[in-house]
């Protein structure tokens, strides 16, 4: 086994990650403004920014979903065994200096807990936001229905609940990025794309030969 600096996040993945981060921050901030939690923005401004950011985020998600499927990266998010071990590690092991129970590899960029969290994000929180968000955005197209008054209540409240879930997710997510070798290790990885990964000799030789993944 050899440790090599391997590009584990491609240029698109990094672009996607950081633009998604900016958009979600923007949406959460302006959303809470609309909600009346704070008043740093005028209501009209908050709605305008929220609307543009929402369109941008949805476009990004469409591209990324496409990317995930064409590159086969979607498999990264599939359920993995060993989640209990990972939870135990974060709850206790990390405090007493135990090694991480999971080894990052090219085929397994995420540990079991991460996959589960991201999966939740992608199939529950995300869709809850965009489904209710689109219904909210196009309220006027269904405002004439007899159920529209109740419908708006439901849509707005569901959107708000999902937003709170998203906020909670983001807080924990950001904290988790500090649990690498150094507090900024994961962040750097997501910026540069490179991380030290253990490769078997065969893998290394293959990658060096085909250049299918960049190495340093």
């Amino acid at each position, binding site marked *: 086994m050899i440790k090599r600096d391997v590009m584990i996040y491609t240029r698109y993945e990094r672009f996607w990650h950081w633009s998604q981060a900016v958009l979600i921050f923007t949406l959460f901030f302006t959303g809470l403004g609309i909600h009346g939690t704070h008043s740093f923005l005028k209501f009209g401004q908050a709605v305008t920014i929220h609307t543009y950011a929402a369109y941008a985020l949805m476009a990004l998600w469409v591209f990324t979903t496409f990317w995930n499927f064409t590159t086969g990266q979607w498999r990264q998010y599939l359920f993995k065994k060993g989640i209990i071990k990972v939870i135990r590690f974060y709850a206790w092991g990390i405090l007493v200096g135990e090694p991480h129970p999971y080894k990052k590899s090219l085929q397994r960029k995420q540990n079991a807990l991460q996959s589960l969290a991201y999966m939740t994000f992608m199939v529950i929180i995300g869709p809850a936001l965009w489904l209710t968000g689109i219904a909210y955005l196009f309220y006027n197209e269904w405002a004439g229905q007899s159920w529209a008054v109740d419908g708006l209540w439901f849509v707005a409240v569901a959107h708000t609940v999902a937003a709170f879930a998203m*906020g909670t997710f983001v807080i924990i997510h950001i904290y988790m990025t500090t649990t690498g070798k150094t507090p900024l290790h994961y962040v750097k990885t997501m910026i540069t794309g490179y991380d030290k990964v253990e490769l078997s000799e065969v893998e290394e030789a293959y990658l060096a030969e085909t250049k299918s993944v960049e190495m340093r």
Partner: protein
Amino acid sequence: MKRLFRHFRAGAVALALATWLPGAALASSTADHSKFESLKGPFTSAPEVTKACLACHTEASHQVMKSIHWTWDFTNPDTGKRLGKTRTMNSFCGSPLSNEPRCTSCHAGYGWTDARQPPEPVQQNVDCLVCHDRSGGYKKVATDAGHPLYEPRTMGGKTVMPPDLAKAAQSVGDPGRDNCGACHFNGGGGDAVKHGDLDSSLVKPSRKLDVHMAADGANMTCATCHTFNDHIPSGSRYDTAAKDPHGLDLPKDDHNRATCESCHGDTPHHEAKLNDHTDKVACQTCHIPEFARGGIATKTLWDWSTAGRKDADGKAIFIKDDHGHLSYSAEKGDFEYGENVRPTYHWHNGVTDQVNIGDKIDDSQILRLNTLHGDARDPDSRIWPFKEMRGKQPYDPVLKTLVVNHVYGRDDSAFWGNYDYAKSIKFGMEYAGLPWSGQIGFIETRMTWPITHMVAPKEDALKCGQCHTRGEDGRLAQLPGFYMPGRDSIAWLDILGYLALAGALGGVLLHGLARIVMNRKTRHD
């Protein structure tokens, strides 16, 4: 695509509008009335002028006699109820009955001295000049059942000269703001009293006060919107158009431009989000942020119950406030006024129940003289601005009806002069032929007056945050029945949400702290 089309339509409206506006079109009359022999006079009475008008305008009087300006009679198509000034009660003056020569001074005719009967259909009793005089000199005197002065008269210590009827007759033209205003600005017995959005400041309004009627705005007149068809005006407070599904009047004209949508359509804004509001929010709600903005105060409270007070010398008491407004009048009671008043807002679908004289009322609560229909779930309703008038007025606590108060007249019963409700109401009820128990009570009343004039320039329109706010002072803070972003939320869900956020934050901070502390320990070990 739909939105694109809307933009195109908005442009088309602007073009079309330019051809309507009086100043914009080069329409001049082909008749110069100052050259007509028959209008040179001299005229000894106003009906003589009318006779001269009718010699050419053969159908005019017949048309006017069908209009509400003449009949004071209107059957509400929504409720089927017969309304009109002689039947329907408001929180101001009471009833014209028994007070005719004073109240019928605003009748579009001459000599209607008994309002229990419809005005006699005498052709030359139609008042052409009150609407068409452009000399500015013609004026119906306040007490002569619609006639102007014919002789000099001393009023309030001043000698007032009669108008020059010949000059008025030769000046005739399309009605100006001052013509309509002569009556409509003075509803409730004085300038600005009644409506709040109609007063003499609209004769020459600034752009800030009224974008449509300002000389440096569109310079429109009342009739630009209140289209007249054969002398029948459009627009009605009894039968309001809370929503105009007909929308733009061009290319197909419904000859009723008395709604904003008639000219502006229902998607007038460049911003789609604003257009999204027009199905639920009347234009007036945002574009008339306050009424009584022209520097003339409108009455907001009229309490008849205190009227009739006299001082030690037996002289009727009149008190003026710091602004020179009567705050107390022995003739009328207590008053409160408002300028730059923020409207109250209600859902309204155009259907209104009015209380008529003689209607059974419920005196166990505040009496609403007009009850608005509509709510958030009603597709025909929109949020409208209103002037809320507070009143307290005499009623019959036994028979539970409002009463006719005989205020004006040179007799020993008229309240203005004798200050005795027992006499004035007895007289009024007998005159009206209505049953009265002999008892007098005072009931608190409320009345909502739709606000639709004094449209402000767009830069003064309400901003989103004035409604979309948690604040108690939000414009729609009191309006129930629907979810509005920025105002509404489910409190317990919010608390759970904030707890989740705070819990996550606290949790990770603790965990981080534990990591730091434990790491040191393990290293030291």
